[in-house]
């Protein structure tokens, strides 16, 4: 079924709110259904704001925390994505890869292993392809603040800066690498590293979707005009555990400061601006809840993936 935000006649603000609300609802339901799902509650503004101003022919590589709604913004079907998370038939990956992957025909860099950092390389390659073909297509790649310490981060930003590739790197900085707090592994803001590659490095309030979009606009334009990559650090906050059933005992040892809920913040702003009423927002959240519930109901009854999806003949084309 169509996502509620695809309903005609919604204002831009309400559409963004709708995607964020849908992500929140989907996340909650998937966490309940799969204890190993990676929750994204509280990070929706950084996620949606990084990807909502791209063209369909641009490429994206989304961080593993919260990518499903990003894929849906590009046209992926919720039921097929949910099937991946529940281990049911019908998923784009035929039950083979990690469940947070998306369909490549929608210009999505797929997740084909559980390692971190390699997606920066493949995303950089997408930007290289666009430069080779002489088009003005770009790539946006998001990743976590933990991933930022992989060697691939340095290698790829340096290579993209050297070759002026059309890509925007966005660090979805939620303050945690599983159980370790960022202060223990990031001696300085990730954005500061941009200076070492002579590219723009910008920190932004990652829980303010408008601010994320404004920052992205400049970086997207720069990439599209052939002026090379940018690094954006969207500061957000991980509201839940690393995985859904994470007991998070470490949080008592490393107490952190919550950030205001981006969904509530954006809803309030829409009301203040007169762009929406509380009823409009309620209606969108209700629609999201209904869409997710009916999707889950439909997917739950599908058969589990099994030997039929093993695909011995699909190892090498």
């Amino acid at each position, binding site marked *: 079924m169509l996502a509620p935000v695809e309903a005609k006649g919604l204002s831009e603000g309400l559409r963004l709110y709708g995607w964020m609300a849908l992500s929140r609802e989907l996340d909650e339901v998937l966490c309940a259904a799969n204890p190993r799902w990676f929750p994204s509650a509280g990070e929706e503004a950084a996620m949606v704001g990084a990807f909502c101003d791209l063209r369909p022919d641009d*490429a994206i590589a989304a961080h593993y925390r919260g990518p499903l709604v990003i894929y849906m913004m590009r046209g992926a079907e919720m039921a097929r994505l949910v099937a991946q998370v529940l281990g049911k038939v019908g*998923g*784009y*990956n*035929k039950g*083979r*890869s990690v469940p947070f*992957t998306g*369909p*490549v*025909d929608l*210009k999505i*860099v*797929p*997740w*084909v*292993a559980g*390692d971190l*950092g*390699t997606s*920066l*390389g*493949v*995303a*950089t*390659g*997408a*930007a*290289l*392809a*666009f430069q*080779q*073909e002489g088009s003005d297509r770009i790539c946006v790649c998001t990743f976590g603040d933990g991933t930022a310490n992989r*060697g*691939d981060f340095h*290698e*790829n930003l*340096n*290579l993209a800066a*050297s*070759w002026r590739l059309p890509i925007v790197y966005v660090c979805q900085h939620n303050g945690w690498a599983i159980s370790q707090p960022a202060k223990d592994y990031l001696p300085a803001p990730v954005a500061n590293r941009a200076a070492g590659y002579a590219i723009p490095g910008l920190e932004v309030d990652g829980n303010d979707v408008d601010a994320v979009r404004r920052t992205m606009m400049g970086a997207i334009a720069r990439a599209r005009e052939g002026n090379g990559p940018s690094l954006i650090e969207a500061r957000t906050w991980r509201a839940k555990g690393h995985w859904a059933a994470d007991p998070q005992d470490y949080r008592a040892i490393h107490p952190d400061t919550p950030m205001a809920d981006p969904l509530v913040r954006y809803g309030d702003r829409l009301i203040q601006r007169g762009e929406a009423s509380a009823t409009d927002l309620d209606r969108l959240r209700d629609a999201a809840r209904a869409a997710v519930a009916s999707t889950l109901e439909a997917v739950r009854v599908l058969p589990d993936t099994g030997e039929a999806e093993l*695909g011995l003949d*699909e*190892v*090498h*084309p």
Partner: protein
Amino acid sequence: MEAVIEAIAVAMREDPRVFYIGQDVGAMQGSMQGTKGLWEEFGPMRIREAPISESAMVGAALGAALFGQRPIVEISFGEFLPAAMNQLINQAPNLHYMTGGTARVPVVVRTRVGDGPYGGHPQDYSAWFAHVPGWKVVMPATPVDAKGMMTAAIRDDGPVLFFEGMSLSHAARAPVPLDAFETPIGPARIAREGRDVTVVAVGSSLPLAVRAAGELAAEGIELEILDLRTLRPLDRDAILASVRRTRRLITVHEAWVAGGIGAEVVASVVEEAPEVLVAPVIRIGAAAVPVPSGKVRPHALPNARHIVEAARRVMAGTRA
């Protein structure tokens, strides 16, 4: 070497999507002159000089391939492959399969291994990659195959690892057809027919086997030499067919013996038809030490004498 460059040049003239990523492939014309002439002909946008960042180079090639290009990425020497291992193992071979068979990544990874004229970077890690489903792994032994298999690798829609034995790079000369032609990835080739012992030789070990065969012929021992050409997929049928004729088997490669491709060659016989063997098999390869860069190196590597002695032992050890 010239044969490989020729294959790349022909492919780049034919197809604008083919481009090249490597270190020192511009003004220097490549490690061991391995890209001689390409930069002058195709310019810096299609012969891309990369920073010393093997992981980013391979990742960029994979991404470019995923989005419609057909890159060749050169890792100057096989010793540097481990710097890109995450991309080479967790990404390249997985992309097609893990996406439900939808992603296409036509990437060639070209690299140099083994003993060579300068003696540096001799480690041969080719067997690691033959272990992994999703890779095709080739190691040609002749100039004609070097050109034909590079052409086949570039035209393949999936990832292909192209290993060049460095001792072959500026070695045997042979006429190579000028036009583009493909030597299919997979089939092994009988380099010499013989009735007594099958020697399965890989890449740079082929000339050693040929030399040994000449010496043994004088003693009345006839080697059949199978040039393996491809480490994955392995040509089990050709191996088995040859051993059915000779009933004796020796394997030889420059990489280490333990866990090497020779073991897989032996397994392809003993799993299918153990009864055909009338003598113990012998595997020849590098000594079980990190291959030395200094003058100790020749003592660690296989040579023709090893093959001659192995063949004599195999003949002597034949059951009545």
